[in-house]
């Protein structure tokens, strides 16, 4: 009887301790996790990008109508005003931006530490580690089992490589196909090679918020507005003419295209959603 009493009181004490442990954790758990948005808008010079309907002009004076535009954004880091960075966890840091799907153009980062941020950096493409990772680590946007012939095909099965940037369209400056249409296609990949060193077209891009500071807390959700200008692909560091390069995929010239598109992003402002 005595012993039973003792064990009962011990149990009660343990029970109480359990409640207390729970309680001390509670205030933390009550504060909702903070979020951060990256909104991409694709443009051609001063006009919004429209697929298949509008003819734009590049600096070589060539008229072109984009029909498809996709790119991978990965390895995102948010840079604090003190220069330190929040690195988004690897497994939630791969996004495929597709012009045909507006939902993909708005990235939401969850569980972002509260603080003040002045810039964002990301890799345009899929880094070499993930490009050679086990198939079980390639889910979502990285799943190689997508229709390769369709607009979303961003994977070369015969060399196991991701396409980082895909721009396709029509142009009177491109050679005519059987239907009389002139097609141009830029599929840019190459992460630097597995055993053998190859071209490395991975580009790290930093978008600074200028004088703006993105304040992140559970009640303010900033979304940085990033613009990608398709024109830069033709008119960047090295001007590229569609007539001279109607198709760029597996060629050393892909490095020139990549150098150009590395400059296509610019900061357009911050939008902050306030809740309480």
């Amino acid at each position, binding site marked *: 009887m005595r012993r039973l009493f003792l064990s009962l009181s011990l149990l009660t004490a343990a029970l109480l301790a359990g409640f207390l442990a*729970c309680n001390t954790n509670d205030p933390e758990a009550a504060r909702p996790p903070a979020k951060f948005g990256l909104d991409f808008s694709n443009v051609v010079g001063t006009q919004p990008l429209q697929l298949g309907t509008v003819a734009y002009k590049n600096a070589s004076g060539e008229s072109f109508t984009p029909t498809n535009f996709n790119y991978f954004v990965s390895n995102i880091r948010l840079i604090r005003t003190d220069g330190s960075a929040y690195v988004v966890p690897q497994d939630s840091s791969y996004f495929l931006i597709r012009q045909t799907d507006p939902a993909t153009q708005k990235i939401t980062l969850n569980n972002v530490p509260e603080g003040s941020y002045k810039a964002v950096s990301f890799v345009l493409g899929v880094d070499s580690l993930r490009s050679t990772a086990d198939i079980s680590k390639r889910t979502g946007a990285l799943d190689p089992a997508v229709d390769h012939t369709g607009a979303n095909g961003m994977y070369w099965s015969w060399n196991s490589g991701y396409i980082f940037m895909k721009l396709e369209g029509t142009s009177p400056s491109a050679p005519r196909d059987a239907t009389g249409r002139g097609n141009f296609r830029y599929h840019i990949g190459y992460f630097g090679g597995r055993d053998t060193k190859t071209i490395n077209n991975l580009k790290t891009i930093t978008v600074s918020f200028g004088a703006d500071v993105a304040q992140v807390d559970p009640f303010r959700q900033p979304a940085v507005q990033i613009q990608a200008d398709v024109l830069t692909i033709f008119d960047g560091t090295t001007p590229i003419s569609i007539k001279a390069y109607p198709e760029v995929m597996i060629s050393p010239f892909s490095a020139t295209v990549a150098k150009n598109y590395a400059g296509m992003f610019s900061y357009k402002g911050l939008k902050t959603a306030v809740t309480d």
Partner: protein
Amino acid sequence: MKQLQLIGFLLSAALFGVVASCQSGGSEVVTPAPVPGKPDMKPPVVYQTTPYPWKKPTNFPDPVYNFANNPLTLEGVALGRTLFYDDMLSVNGTVSCAFCHQQPAAFAHPDHALSHGVNDKIGTRNNLGLQNLAFYKNFFWDGGVADLDLLPIAPIENPVEMAHSMPNLLNAVRQSAKYRPLFQSAFGSDSVTTARFLKSLSQFMLTMVSANSRYDKHARKEAGGQLTSDELAGLNLFQQKCSSCHAGELFTDQSFRNNGLSRVLNQDVGRYGITLRTEDKFKFKVPSLRNVARTPPYMHDGRFWTLNDVLNHYTTMQEVPELDPVLRQNGKPGVLLTDPEKQQIIAFLNTLTDTAYIADRQFSAPN
């Protein structure tokens, strides 16, 4: 006394409840993955796999494939085998992997110089026999794919091979009554993911080990390993003239080289198409010569129909700029061999045929 016991029990139950709710608060509930070999706790699924006893032949190097990421099970291998032999992997249900990779030809495509796929479409390269894939660093004539798990996507999506689309194929497999129990028993649930589909094909292909030719028995000093004097002379010549490239027990050093094939009719750039390095132009993977007597025609474009033609090529080749230095000794392209020596090398190459492999029921069509 009984009552007190009851109170004690109730209290401990309450305590357990508190601790449990405390743990799940805020974070996700994590369902543990089923442990292979242990029955899943969730009824009604009882899931039990049996490890496949994969063994490295004693005369072989260590495998390259990372088995830790894909432990072989009898159930996984059985699923992969069924997929390998299934026509539904092609867009119109006419071509399976095994259509082009036939067991009697050591899983090459006999009598086809170039790949032959759906709707009689012809590819640009000769087929490769399949064996000892666990030991290769890369695949295809140009080494374009370096991970066996990713390989099947290439033939499945190639418009001149199976011409399918992976999402459509995976959906068809999901819908198939035949595959649901096979995925269930291999992976513990019938969900068909890219990774499961590909890894089961790998599992089957990894079991395809060919190491029981007469040459192997000779190398391991086993019964049945006698070589004739011609075969032994051929082995000796082979080691002098051929084995710097067709090296070791795999009969390939897995490098990319040019062996002096004329380019008059074929401008395939080979390895360059993958690496874009000038020095890789017109180089191809040194193929394994295991079961080579079973896999005519030969070379990446199937230009030679007999081993005689191959040996004649090695002795009569003309200069090409990319020719491997090993084949340009004494300042002249080619290998010095008399006709009887060529016949001895061919006699030796014939000892690399593994008749047990070619007849092994575990690699043939299921049922």
